[in-house]
């Protein structure tokens, strides 16, 4: 080897067999710049080399899908000439290093993925997972992440309307920060990242390039070790103000008719955006790096190509029309510089002051990047963990106390402290605010609305990845249904440990199969997503944590519903089976510190029956409120129905034989609590019977108390107050970086 030695290859995370492949592709030794490009393009983060073969199993087709996976974001048709664009992405590692900026730049990245497609972002959601809040550093991380999301999202003026937040020691040293963005575009004006016209101009727009996050793309695909300390100066700082200008300018530029393709510069910056666009279009690209706007003096081509500076995009513009586009960016005070052109030779050619400095076949770093079928192995733990002897779990008979402890535990307490820091109303579209099952956004200019949710259940996935992932899809779907929406599409974010660990890879495969099974069962396509591997520290991986983001369509937004009981005297009904199961439940975890047991089975016929009944009931105006019954079981779900502004209560009687804790706190799929006016009861019952859906009257809405006959009686006011403030309370005490 000449210049490239083992150390350099290690620094670039390139294995020796990968290096051999590079030599074969080039027919010569690469220079450092070329090696850097291979390194980022072949990183797990950009190439999906471990996940690609499994991701193919996801169902991605449906008549309303305009764009499935493979683009910057997925697109679905919602009628009226409009389309909804959605995508979720992780920013886990950067947020662990610098929570505020890490989370903020995560928001910035996902927003660009949406407006890149020509859509105006209308909502953000965040799926957050942290370790135990007893750790001083976790408080710091949690507070920092929430402030970072708040700062970026609020500043750019896209409301953060929902999310989920989960605490578990499995995330003590690898937190998860996933952000989902949803936008709306005109159906015939979707932009894609396909550069297929040789001669067209490559236009660099947005912030200048600095030395930010160089090797960042590699970092995100690399497990933490002691060395991550050294990489620390690679923190990227976000600038939501510039992003706001970039958003407005980009949408305006797309109106000029001169723009052929667009892609944001995310991970692997200029390299991936230029190569991926050329790759998709079967073209090549030639760039003159001396033209790239730089923030610092003396930046090398290596730095320019690998920088991950934020708030930058690459536009492909029709030759001769670039001035029109530049005009727009000038108006918004942004740089827009032609730095090269699309070519027909399928090569990436880089020049510096006219001199060739790198030449790489595009296919080799895009569609022909290495893929691995990594070994898989079912973890030993499972057989033992999936078993549980219920008789060994002491039955505590103070059910009121259990309920109190559950709803004040970090996972089930109100997330108000988080979402009041997010502007969730800007845009004046948020019809159902955070705090209910799904957020609902109206679509101005139509009668329609969309329902949005993001869910996961990593304990279920830990105990039974396949079934756990399927549960997550079902829960997301029920959340959408409960607000009156019909599920349209999924975007996922698959957070896992080290893929080189066969057990992790097995979990990954199983989760994909579970998502597949539920998507087929419920007929919901996956249109976009993201994989985050290497969520591992010192050999310990996180629980398998697939997050499922979902969008549903509401035909008449004025008929949408939230989860809160509305009127005294309304009848409370349970759709679905009465009994829950205790295996893997939040109750076992929070009260008995046990994480085991069989994950409840899913009966898709039942699941569909429950969902169809609820949706039809809401659409016909028969249902006053609907709430998905999931973590915490029936008792927690009932309490949550009472925590609306009016502080309604419930008087409930459950006819059930067996253990009280299983009845009240057992979990499982296919259950929804609805409230209806008396006069509508027979009609909803008829719909349920038609769908063969169990429908059980369990009580009535009353004022101010939750009474479950024979089990508990609690006053709503005080209960709601402790539920409302317990997350904030658990943040008191020592913070440490």
């Amino acid at each position, binding site marked *: 080897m000449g210049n490239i030695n083992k150390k350099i290859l290690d620094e670039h995370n390139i294995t020796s067999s990968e290096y051999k492949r590079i030599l074969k592709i080039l027919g010569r030794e690469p220079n450092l710049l070329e090696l850097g490009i291979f390194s980022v393009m072949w990183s797990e983060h950009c190439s999906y080399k471990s996940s690609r073969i499994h991701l193919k199993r996801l169902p991605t087709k449906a008549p309303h899908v305009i764009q499935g996976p493979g683009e910057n974001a997925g697109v679905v048709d919602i009628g009226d000439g409009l389309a909804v664009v959605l995508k979720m992405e992780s920013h886990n590692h950067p947020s662990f290093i610098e929570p505020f900026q890490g989370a903020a730049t995560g928001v910035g990245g996902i927003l660009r993925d949406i407006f890149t497609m020509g859509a105006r972002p209308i909502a953000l959601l965040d799926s957050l997972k942290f370790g135990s809040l007893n750790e001083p550093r976790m408080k710091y991380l949690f507070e920092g992440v929430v402030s970072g999301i708040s700062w970026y999202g609020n500043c750019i003026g896209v409301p953060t309307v929902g999310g989920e937040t989960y605490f578990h020691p499995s995330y003590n040293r690898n937190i998860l920060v996933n952000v989902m963005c949803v936008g709306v575009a005109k159906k015939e004006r979707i932009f894609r990242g396909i550069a297929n016209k040789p001669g067209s101009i490559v236009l660099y727009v947005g912030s200048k390039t600095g030395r930010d996050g160089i090797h960042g793309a590699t970092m995100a695909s690399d497990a933490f070790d002691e060395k991550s300390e050294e990489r620390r100066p690679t923190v990227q700082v976000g600038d939501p*103000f510039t992003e706001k200008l970039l958003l407005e300018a980009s949408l305006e530029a797309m109106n000029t008719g001169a723009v052929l393709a667009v892609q944001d510069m995310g991970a692997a910056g200029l390299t991936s955006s230029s190569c991926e666009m050329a790759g998709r279009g079967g073209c090549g690209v030639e760039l003159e790096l001396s033209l790239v706007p730089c923030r610092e003096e003396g930046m090398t081509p290596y730095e320019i190509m690998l920088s991950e500076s934020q708030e930058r995009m690459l536009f492909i513009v029709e030759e001769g029309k670039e001035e029109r586009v530049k005009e727009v960016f000038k108006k918004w005070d942004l740089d827009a510089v032609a730095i090269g052109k699309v070519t027909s030779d399928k090569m990436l050619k880089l020049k510096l002051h006219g001199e060739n400095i790198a030449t790489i076949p595009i296919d080799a770093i895009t569609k022909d990047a290495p893929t691995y079928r990594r070994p898989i192995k079912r973890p030993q733990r499972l057989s033992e963990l999936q078993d549980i002897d219920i008789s060994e779990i002491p039955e505590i008979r103070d059910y009121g106390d259990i309920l109190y402890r559950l709803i004040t535990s970090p996972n089930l307490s109100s997330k108000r402290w988080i979402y009041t*820091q997010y*502007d969730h109303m800007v845009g004046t579209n948020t019809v159902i605010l955070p705090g209910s099952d799904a957020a609902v956004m109206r679509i101005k200019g139509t009668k329609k609305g969309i329902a949005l949710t993001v869910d996961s259940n990593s304990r279920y996935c830990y105990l039974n990845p396949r079934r756990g992932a399927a549960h997550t899809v079902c829960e997301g779907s029920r959340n959408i249904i409960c607000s009156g929406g019909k599920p349209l599409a999924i975007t996922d974010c698959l957070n896992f440990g080290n893929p080189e660990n066969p057990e992790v890879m097995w979990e990954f495969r199983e989760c994909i199969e579970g998502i597949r099974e539920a998507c087929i069962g419920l007929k919901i396509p996956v249109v976009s997503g993201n994989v985050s591997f290497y969520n591992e520290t010192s050999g310990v991986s996180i629980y398998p944590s697939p997050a499922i983001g979902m969008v549903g369509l509401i035909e008449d937004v004025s008929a949408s519903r939230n989860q809160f009981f509305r009127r005294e005297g309304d009848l409370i009904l349970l759709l679905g089976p009465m009994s829950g199961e205790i295996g893997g439940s939040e109750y076992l975890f929070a009260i008995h510190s046990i994480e085991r047991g069989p994950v409840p089975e899913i009966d898709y016929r039942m699941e569909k029956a429950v969902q169809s009944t609820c949706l039809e009931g809401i659409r016909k105006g028969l249902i006053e409120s609907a709430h998905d019954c999931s973590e915490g079981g029936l008792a927690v779900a009932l309490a949550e129905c009472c925590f609306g502004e009016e502080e309604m209560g419930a008087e409930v009687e459950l006819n059930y034989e067996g253990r009280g804790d299983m009845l009240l706190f057992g979990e499982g799929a296919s259950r929804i609590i609805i409230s209806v006016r008396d006069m509508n009861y027979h009609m909803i019952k008829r719909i349920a019977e038609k769908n063969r859906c169990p429908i059980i009257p369990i009580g009535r809405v009353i004022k101010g108390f939750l009474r479950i006959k024979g089990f508990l009686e609690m006053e709503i006011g005080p209960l709601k107050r402790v539920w409302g403030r317990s997350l904030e309370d658990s943040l008191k005490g020592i913070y440490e970086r």
Partner: protein
Amino acid sequence: MKFGVIVFPGSNCDHDCYYVIKNVLKQEVEFIWFREERLEDFDAIILPGGFSYGDYLRPGAIASYSPIVKSLRRFSENGGLILGICNGFQILIEAGLLPGALLRNRSLKFICKKVYIRVENSKTPFTNLITHGRVLSLPIAHAHGCYYADSKTIEKLESEGLVVFRYCGSNGEITEESNPNGSWNNIAGIISRNGNVLGMMPHPERAAEDIMGSCDGILIFESMVNHHGKHKQKNTR
């Protein structure tokens, strides 16, 4: 009546204000880019909420140096109506069109939630359709909304009836608990001495339709239209 909504770089409630004026209030409305200088054609100007210049330096500060603010001064001297909402209020303060300062919220957090405000002066062009003492439910969404001024200024504001809105409880009670950001005397909105420039932290445009959960905010826009109508009659008579 013709409204203008000024768009600064970083404004993000501009479209929301425009939508309400056009589709709910059903009045004429245009965006005004911050580099423009002509305001003569307008009857009222809205400075919308958002993060002009990213809130960098101080919220509203950099925007207050734009040329359009000079025109805004002239516009106000000629009696034109100016409503500054949230960041718009911050800009008016930084520009010196309203007194005092807006400090960081006492909690140090951005706060987005519905609050109650009590109407303390119903004789203004912005509140003439609302009865004195009525409680409105409007959302706030800001990180710098803690109204502060030296005691002399506060005294003046209070004694001259220039405090138009005050944070309160659902029954109009003025308490520490109902003060979301630590504002002096629970001040949520103030008006200039000549009565044509109003700044307020809550967002009336976010509570202007049933589907948004409250229609209280539209009363402020309707009051402006009502005032304009009367004024015009007087002028043509």
